[in-house]
């Protein structure tokens, strides 16, 4: 799940409109594209200070996805920093909510911009871009000295998962800038006022649900019912905790019986019980904004989400709400992975088009973004956790971001993730449909997993669908 918000937002967009049509059609325009305009005219000498040979005379065109994080961070943090080193380079800043629609024709026309924050509901398909050789190989960026310290390579300032996830067809070409950290979110104020404590075991979690329900003050649990991927996120994380990370690796690799393992069964059964007993009324029909707003109004105590939540809710959150996050509880003492295991994945994906006019400038821009200063100010401004190691250190983080950062530090190497939902959209749609049914009692846990296994097998046997491995 490189970026749940990306998908929930996509859902939202989809539900709103047919907007992706144009983008997708523009995507079809790719084959008709002319050969790329030559971008390597008169190379500028490279140096330790200017590792890619950025030319002062070439403008730099930047496109930011204007979504949950807005675009101010680029204008007020990243671009001034870049300018401080290259005052003569003209930066053309742009922002849109519809990346694909606006930019895919540019790729088709052979004149893409230089830096793209390819995120949000209508992000372009990375696989298709990679296949079409549109993505600049960012390996030189990894090997370049970091902005802050010539003795350290950029590679060593990044969370390793960034490189793993950003590698397409063997080439590192997508830079995830934000670490999404998933867990169960609550109001620290509400918990304090009512004497509730974040649970560490499933048993405690059930008891807490029961206590909240009995208190009559609010509903215990909800999730974005319209987007059940929010729920299968915790379900899968718990299965990985019970059975180890290979549970998710096997699912990603479409292994036989990967969905119907004992760990998955245990987790599905456990969450179905929450669905049957503790959900806020009407959950099935609410989207993420509605459920999150209900939480802000103290109508519900807990919901599964990721570290973008605090920023997403900033307009409706009461000042003393104090977001907190706790990791998925231990199911039993014999879980394969210890308490504190987290699902985390780099996201907010930046790319440098290979056929742009100024890929050198593009890479340098990314190098500037990955400086401690830029990443730290970014984390502070948009209340989130960046993929640059230690960027949040000494920063004044908001309660939610602090809580997520703490959990992330405590998790250490116990991080799990899965990628099948971006690789196999059909499987994702089936999982979304079936998870909703599991939670409302329309499917038993066994039937639920059988159904997903069947879909996974179908995809495995469909030669027209490109397969991925991890």
């Amino acid at each position: 799940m490189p970026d749940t918000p990306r998908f929930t937002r996509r859902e939202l967009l989809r539900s709103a409109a047919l907007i992706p049509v144009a983008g997708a059609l523009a995507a079809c325009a790719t084959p008709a594209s002319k050969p790329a305009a030559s971008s390597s005219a008169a190379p500028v000498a490279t140096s330790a200070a200017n590792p890619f040979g950025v030319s002062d005379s070439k403008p730099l065109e930047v496109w930011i996805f204007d979504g949950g994080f807005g675009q101010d961070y680029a204008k007020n943090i990243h671009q001034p920093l870049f300018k401080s080193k290259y005052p003569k380079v003209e930066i053309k800043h742009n922002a849109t909510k519809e990346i694909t629609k606006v930019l895919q024709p540019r790729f088709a026309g052979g004149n893409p911009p230089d830096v793209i924050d390819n995120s949000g509901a209508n992000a372009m398909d990375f696989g298709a871009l990679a296949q079409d050789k549109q993505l600049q190989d960012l390996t030189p960026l990894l090997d370049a000295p970091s902005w802050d310290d010539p003795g350290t390579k950029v590679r060593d300032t990044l969370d390793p998962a960034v490189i793993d996830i950003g590698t397409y067809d063997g080439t590192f070409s997508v830079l995830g800038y934000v670490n999404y950290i998933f867990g169960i979110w609550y109001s620290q104020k509400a918990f304090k006022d009512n004497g509730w404590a974040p649970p560490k075991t499933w048993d405690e979690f059930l008891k807490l649900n029961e206590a909240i329900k009995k208190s009559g003050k609010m509903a215990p649990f909800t999730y974005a019912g319209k987007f059940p991927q929010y729920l299968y996120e915790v379900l899968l994380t718990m299965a990985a905790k019970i059975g180890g990370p290979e549970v998710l690796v096997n699912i990603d690799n479409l292994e036989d019986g990967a969905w119907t393992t004992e760990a998955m069964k245990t987790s599905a059964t456990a969450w179905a019980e929450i669905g049957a007993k503790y959900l806020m009324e009407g959950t099935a029909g609410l989207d993420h904004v509605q459920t999150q707003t209900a939480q802000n109004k103290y109508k519900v105590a807990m919901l599964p989400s990721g570290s973008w939540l605090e920023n997403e809710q900033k307009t409706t959150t009461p000042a003393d709400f104090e977001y907190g996050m706790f990791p998925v509880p231990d199911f039993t003492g014999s879980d394969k992975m210890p308490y504190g295991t987290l699902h985390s994945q780099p996201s907010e994906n930046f790319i440098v088009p290979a056929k742009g006019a100024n890929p050198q400038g593009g890479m340098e821009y990314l190098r500037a973004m990955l400086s401690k200063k830029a990443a730290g100010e970014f984390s502070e401004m948009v209340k989130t956790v960046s993929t640059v190691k230690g960027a949040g250190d000494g920063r004044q983080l908001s309660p939610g971001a602090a809580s997520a950062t703490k959990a992330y530090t405590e998790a250490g190497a116990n991080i799990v993730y899965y990628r099948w939902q971006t690789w196999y959209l059909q499987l994702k749609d089936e999982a979304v449909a079936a998870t909703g049914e599991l939670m409302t009692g329309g499917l038993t846990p066994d039937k639920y997993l059988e159904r997903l296994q069947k879909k996974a097998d179908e995809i495995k046997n469909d030669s027209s669908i490109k397969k991925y491995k991890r």
Partner: protein
Amino acid sequence: MLFNRYRRGLFITAFLAAPVTLYLIYVISPYIQAFYISMTDWRGVSATPAFIGLENFRRLLEDGTFWKAVTHNAGLLVLLPLVTIIIALFFSFLLNVGGGGRAVGGIRGSKFYRVVFFFPQVLAVAVVAVLFQQVFRPDGSGMLNAPLMALGAKPIGFLSDPGVAFWSVLGVMVWQAVGFYVVLFSAGLASIPADMFEAAQIDGAGRLSLFFRITLPLLWDTVQVAWVYLGIIALDVFAIVWVMTDQHGGPDWSTTVMAAEVYRNAFQYFRFGYASALGVVMFFFTVGFAILSLRLTRRERIEY
């Protein structure tokens, strides 16, 4: 004479040139291309998609979601015209004939009703879909659930309960369509000579027999036209489902329709070849329905 024939030919050519050219370029050629694409594995990226013959069609036979969509279209094909026509006939009859007011020309306020009933028809489907998404909210902020909950009932998951969502879609489609057919049938009724009703009334015919013996037979032609319109709407439905329902045809595929599956496969899974194959199947269903209904409705009009 020869000159006249020449003039005539020139006239025909000149008048047909623009419409036929536009139609060939913008309508016919894309459809022909789509048929070809349906036999390829095109995913929107490669310049030279591989020709795979009927492979896509073989695959779609096993596509459970698509066939679910087909059954939903079939359901709508029967229910949408049936419900809409019954309601519209009922109201147009009340408005024009059976209101107990003047025998012909309508019940008091009939003009007002006709104007109001037609309102939904002038709204764009996309607007209606967004509107009803809000109306159907599953909690106390929903227009329909708020009074239900005030009465102590459990809120209904109009769009979130797989057993209910299809009916919500049908309901919205009927809501939007009825007004148009009330006006259409009213127009038809207005063309029936007033004498016929009055004569029948003087003969002591009740409202029911008035309806079944006079209104319905004389309106039969219009009803058939309505049936064909509504049938095509039912087969083509997309925006309501895509914009209004959860997960675009959900929950759990309970509202998906053929057009949504075509769209989903093309623009979300980037399987343009496969999507075109689904489109071709949809094409044959629609054309089949059109031919069938043309056949069935080609009958003598009742002259009066």
